[in-house]
């Protein structure tokens, strides 16, 4: 048999390997147990909440945006939240935490949509708010909006 014919058969044989195969055991019980514990992705609602926090933190103005997620198989995302110091004023700790969460969510969203310029704007504003919290003197909390 010529090399050409053998190669044809060989390639054809490889293509025929691409068939479905059944696992030797039923994997569903294990999957079912794992999905009962596995949180489902809900990035965008969190992001909307993050934007809400941003707006309520004051000074951000009116931001209206719509999210269109075209990514169907996004890779796992790593937490990339910045590490900020706590504000001097303890009454601002909760707001600081909210802004940190918002910042982390925005950074994760940016990893999924690196071309989304509006996310960069939101992230900059969030970090700006967080920076201002740090710079707020402990005695000036009454002036916070």
């Amino acid at each position, binding site marked *: *048999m010529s*090399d050409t014919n*053998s*190669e044809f*058969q*060989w*390639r054809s*044989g*490889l*293509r*025929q*390997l*691409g*068939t*479905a*195969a*059944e*696992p*030797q*055991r*039923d*994997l*569903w*019980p*294990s*999957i*079912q*147990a*794992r*999905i*009962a514990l*596995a*949180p*489902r*992705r*809900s990035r965008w609602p969190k992001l909307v909440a993050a934007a809400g926090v941003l707006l309520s933190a004051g000074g951000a103005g009116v931001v209206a945006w719509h999210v269109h*997620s*075209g*990514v*169907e*198989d*996004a890779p796992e995302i790593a937490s990339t939240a910045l590490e900020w110091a706590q504000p001097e004023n303890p009454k601002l700790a909760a707001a600081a935490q909210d802004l940190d969460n918002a910042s982390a969510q925005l950074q994760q969203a940016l990893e999924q949509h690196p071309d989304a310029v509006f996310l960069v704007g939101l992230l900059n504003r969030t970090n700006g708010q967080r920076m201002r919290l740090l710079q707020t003197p402990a005695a000036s909390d009454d002036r916070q909006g």
Partner: protein
Amino acid sequence: MDGAALSMNLPLPEREASTDDAAALVRRASAGDVRAFERLYRDHVGRVYGAILRLVGMDRARAEELTQEAFVRAWQKLSSFRGESAFSTWLYRLGVNTALMDLRSRRDEANVDDAALEAAAGGEVPFCAAERGDLERAVAGLPPRARAVLVLHDVEGWKHEEISAELGMAVGSSKAQLHRARGLLRRALGGEA
């Protein structure tokens, strides 16, 4: 436990879900219906497991582990499925990605010398006809990265551009790996003939 144990004995569905059925199942599963997701699992596990099995060199235990992982990831990401491709395609790609992520996390071949690999692949061994079992064993015996490229290209029908994107390599590297993999395969099959 009883539900899980019972479901182990459930027969596989007699037919593939129609497109409409599949869309309805995806919607229900996306809304949290575990039974709908189980139906999707049973309809699609063969294709996903088959692809993963070939990518991991016919290591059944590893393939089962990665198939479970793929379906858990599918459950978590179902809300991001927009129907821009068929659900079966989305799931299949997710399964392949899961196997490739595992491959990328293993650096067994990082220190393999390219020249040694090239020499091992050879180029003088003629093609030999091979039975399916011989082919499967020969493919399974390839180094993981070369095997992944050969399986994706010659078995699954992917293009080099797709392979290089998924494996994080240049298109030229994908072509070189395929050349090596075919050489190694030819040598393995030639040795058995």
